[in-house]
């Protein structure tokens, strides 16, 4: 089956156009607006899946905006979508669609929903643009779109002072990160007179300035991804935003993580085997730097989560630890590049990206369901909710087991790959990762006990289960978690392995544009 060549462009254009139409449709009827937004995201997700099918069958897809002719002056932007890009696009499409389905009931008593849905669609366009673009400056533009839309959504509950404060902190951090990304892009452009990732990667010399650009890009994007000790904005933002937005923010955070992957494996792919300082190859050097921050993220995330009493902040610190696991796999894959266990580590890291979005996302939705039903966020005020919220309890148990890496859930499959491969790199890494996973389980058992178990509290006697649309949205994520857990090989072979191969086979990404004469 052949799909139109402009599908990558449509995937970004549809939510973008949808965003500008939403306020207009909102004037007609609120329900019509909700249906319209869901329709936009369903169409978009279908296109993403079609493109994924095409890419996995036929290889990298490109789309050129602007000049197709290479004669000067070349004014154009190139989208280059490989298996890694489409892997991220699939994750984003699913979680945004689930968030919007959940929003139908969860947000129905709020005002300003035309702006809310507009911003969600803008954020979607930003995330999808970040993961599909083949141009560094364009990446920065989409990063900015994502940041601005995220900031406004975090501060959506303007009546709550902490939401506004969290929004402010987020924009400070995002602006700082984006500024350094722009600086790095300027350094690269100044040297090579190019902005296209493939072109830049082809001519990369790994000069002194290239090293500076690499450091700026990795650290700025790692901060946006929430790596310790640059993670502090994350519990504030995730904890104060509406639960649906916390879910979508997971997608935005993972798009920054994708940025780190694209920069390290593709943009600097040619330079990775270069011998750097202390007679160590660049890949080993960067790999161990990432591993160090990843281990720190896992430990700090878990330990800080254990003392939280605010449900959403607790999940947010858990998410910091989960980001650590992803970076641990990726760092190990980089440090041990070329070895069999290095490949397994990279696969584990990439697989965990998907699993984290599903597991942490489901837990945020459960936190939202409890807030919707009880108006409580503090775990100290909760108890006995399993009596009245049976479905939500089941979804929480699924999320708990998945995020803690308990078999047979999806989180176990990806964490096992990370444990076994990092053990071969350095056993201490695997030991720390396993111990922290146990703490992660302990932390969510605390939530399970304090929120769902125990005697029925008098104030919660009238609490009812949440509306069906919210249950349906949580059910989608729970179902995918179980399926991924039961059929890990299908997921690993069909979407994770091609994504890992796309990162390692950077020469194909480069040749698609350079040798292909695009």
């Amino acid at each position: 089956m052949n799909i139109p060549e402009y599908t990558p462009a449509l995937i970004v254009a549809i939510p973008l156009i949808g965003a500008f139409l939403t306020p207009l449709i909102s004037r007609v009827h609120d329900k019509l607006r909700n249906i319209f937004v869901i329709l936009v995201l369903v169409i978009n997700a279908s296109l993403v899946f079609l493109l994924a099918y095409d890419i996995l069958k036929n290889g990298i897809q490109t789309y050129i905006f602007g000049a197709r002719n290479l004669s000067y002056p070349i004014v154009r932007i190139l989208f280059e979508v490989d298996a890694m890009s489409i892997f991220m696009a699939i994750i984003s499409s699913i979680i945004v669609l689930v968030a919007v389905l959940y929003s139908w009931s969860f947000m129905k008593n709020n005002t300003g929903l035309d702006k809310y849905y507009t911003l969600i669609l803008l954020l979607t366009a930003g995330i999808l643009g970040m993961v599909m673009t083949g141009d560094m400056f364009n990446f920065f533009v989409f990063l900015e779109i994502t940041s601005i839309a995220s900031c406004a959504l975090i501060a959506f509950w303007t009546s709550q002072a902490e939401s506004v404060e969290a929004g402010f902190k987020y924009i400070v951090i995002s602006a700082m990160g984006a500024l350094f990304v722009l600086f790095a892009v300027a350094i690269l452009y100044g040297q090579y007179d190019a902005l296209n990732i493939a072109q830049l990667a082809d001519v990369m010399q790994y000069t002194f300035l290239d090293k500076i650009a690499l450091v700026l890009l990795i650290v700025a994007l790692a901060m946006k991804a929430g790596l310790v000790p640059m993670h502090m904005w994350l519990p504030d933002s995730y904890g104060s935003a509406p639960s649906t937005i916390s879910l979508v923010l997971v997608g935005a955070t993972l798009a920054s993580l994708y940025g780190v992957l694209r920069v390290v494996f593709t943009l600097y792919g040619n330079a990775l085997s270069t011998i750097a300082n202390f007679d160590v190859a660049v890949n080993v050097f960067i790999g161990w730097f990432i591993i160090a921050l990843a281990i720190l993220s896992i430990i700090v995330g878990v330990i800080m989560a254990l003392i939280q009493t605010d449900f959403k902040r607790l999940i947010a610190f858990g998410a910091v630890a989960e980001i650590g696991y992803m970076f641990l796999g990726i760092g190990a894959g980089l440090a041990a590049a070329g070895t069999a266990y290095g490949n397994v580590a990279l696969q584990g890291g990439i697989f965990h990206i998907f699993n984290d979005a599903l597991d942490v996302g489901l837990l945020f939705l459960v936190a939202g369901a409890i807030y919707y039903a009880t108006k409580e966020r503090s775990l100290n005020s909760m108890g006995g909710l399993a009596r009245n919220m049976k479905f939500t309890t089941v979804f929480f148990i699924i999320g708990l087991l998945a995020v803690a890496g308990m078999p047979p859930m999806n989180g176990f499959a990806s964490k096992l790959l990370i444990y076994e491969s990092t053990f071969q790199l350095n056993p201490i890494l695997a030991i720390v990762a396993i111990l922290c996973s146990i703490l992660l389980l302990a932390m969510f058992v605390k939530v399970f006990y304090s929120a769902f178990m125990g005697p029925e509290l008098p104030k919660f006697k009238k609490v009812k289960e949440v509306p069906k649309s919210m249950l349906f949205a949580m059910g989608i994520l729970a179902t995918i978690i179980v399926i991924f857990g039961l059929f890990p090989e299908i997921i690993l072979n069909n979407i994770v392995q091609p994504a890992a191969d796309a990162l390692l086979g950077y020469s194909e990404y480069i040749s698609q544009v350079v040798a292909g004469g695009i």
Partner: protein
Amino acid sequence: MFTIETGSGFWNPIVWIIAIIIAYLLIYIIRGFGKTHYKKGTEQVKSFLSGNPEYEKEKMQVKASNLYWGFTTSLKGLYAILKKMHTGNATDYVLWFVVILAIFLLIEVI
């Protein structure tokens, strides 16, 4: 379809599920050997709290902040450092970014 190879081992969720089902069956069988008769509404079904009277149900719930008290108390020193790091101040957030940037730049460039 179900098995993933990790390079040094494998994982098959179906084998695990079968093992769990067998374990639960054994537990169920062992449970069957227990006494099935007890007197409802008597002291047999009441909690025994070292002879102290039982509190009301609502007061029996251990609050979230009291859980893992031993763990958090033994790591008091570490928590003091970590809490000090998490100031909630946006300028400190930026400071950590600058610190990591400086460290990475020093190691990478020099």
